[in-house]
C-alpha cells in the first residue's frame, strides 16, 4: 500500500467536510461535517504512524477521538440552546453580533 493513497483519501474527506461546513445552514449538519474533517485527520495520523512504524500515530488518533467526542457534546448543547432561544437552528439567521 502506498502512503499517498491514505493521505489523498484523507484530503478528499477533509475537503468534503469543508464544503459541508461552508454550504450547510442547519447547525446539526455543520457539526456532522466537522466530524468528517476530524476523521480525515485521524486517517492521516494512523497512516503516518504505520509508515514510521511507531504506535504514536495511533495514540494521537485516540486523543483526537476523545476531543471530537467532547466537541460534539458541547456543540450539540450550544445548537440546542440556539434552537430554544430562536426556535430555529438556521446558522445564517444567528447573526446577532453582526454590525
Amino acid at each position, binding site marked *: 500500500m502506498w*502512503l499517498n493513497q491514505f*493521505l489523498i483519501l484523507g484530503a478528499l474527506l477533509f475537503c468534503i467536510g469543508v464544503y459541508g461546513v461552508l454550504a450547510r445552514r442547519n447547525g446539526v449538519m455543520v457539526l456532522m461535517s466537522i466530524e468528517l474533517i476530524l476523521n480525515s485527520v485521524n*486517517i492521516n495520523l494512523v497512516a503516518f504512524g504505520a509508515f514510521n512504524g511507531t504506535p504514536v500515530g495511533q495514540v494521537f488518533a485516540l486523543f483526537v477521538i476523545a476531543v471530537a467526542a467532547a466537541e460534539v457534546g458541547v456543540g*450539540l448543547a450550544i445548537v*440546542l440552546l440556539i434552537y430554544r432561544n430562536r426556535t430555529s437552528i438556521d446558522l445564517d439567521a444567528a447573526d446577532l453580533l453582526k454590525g
Partner: protein
Amino acid sequence: MVAQNIFFGIIAFVMVVAALRVVTTKNIVHAALYLVIVLAGVAAQFILTGAEFVGVTQILVYIGAVVVLFLFGIMLTRARIGREVEVDNEKRWLAGLVALVLFAVMSFALVDAFEDSRIESVSGGTPQLTSEVSDAIFKDYLIPFEAASFLLLAALIGAIVVARRE
C-alpha cells in the same frame, strides 16, 4: 498486498460517495445515517493499516455514541423527518470552489512530497500491537492522557450546564 489495495479502493469509494451524500442530502436523518457509513469505512481503513485498537475505538465511540448523540440532537431540535427545502445556503457554489481548490493544492503537495513511498516497506506490513499503543499512552503520553480525561469531564459538565433548563 494486491488484495489490500483492492479492498482499500472499494472501501474508499463507498466512503467518498457516502461523505458526498452527507453534505448534499436534503434529509437530515439520512445525513446522519450516511455519516455512519463514512465512520465505519474509516474504522475499516484503520484495521487495513493494522491499527486494530483505534479501529475498534472508532466503532465504539463514533458509531456507538456520537451518531446516537446526533440523532438526539436532530430529535430535540425538531427538524422535520422528511425532506427540508432550506438546508444549504445560496452561496454553496463558492463553498464548492473553496473545497475544490483546497483539494487540488493538498493533493499536489502530497504527491510532490511522498511520491511513491510505501507503508509496508518501512513497518513490514505487520499489525501494530495494542500493547505498544498502551505502553506509549501510559508512559510517554501520560500527562496528555490525563489532560484528555479532564477535558472530557469539563465538556460533560459544560454540556449539561449549557443545555439545562432553568
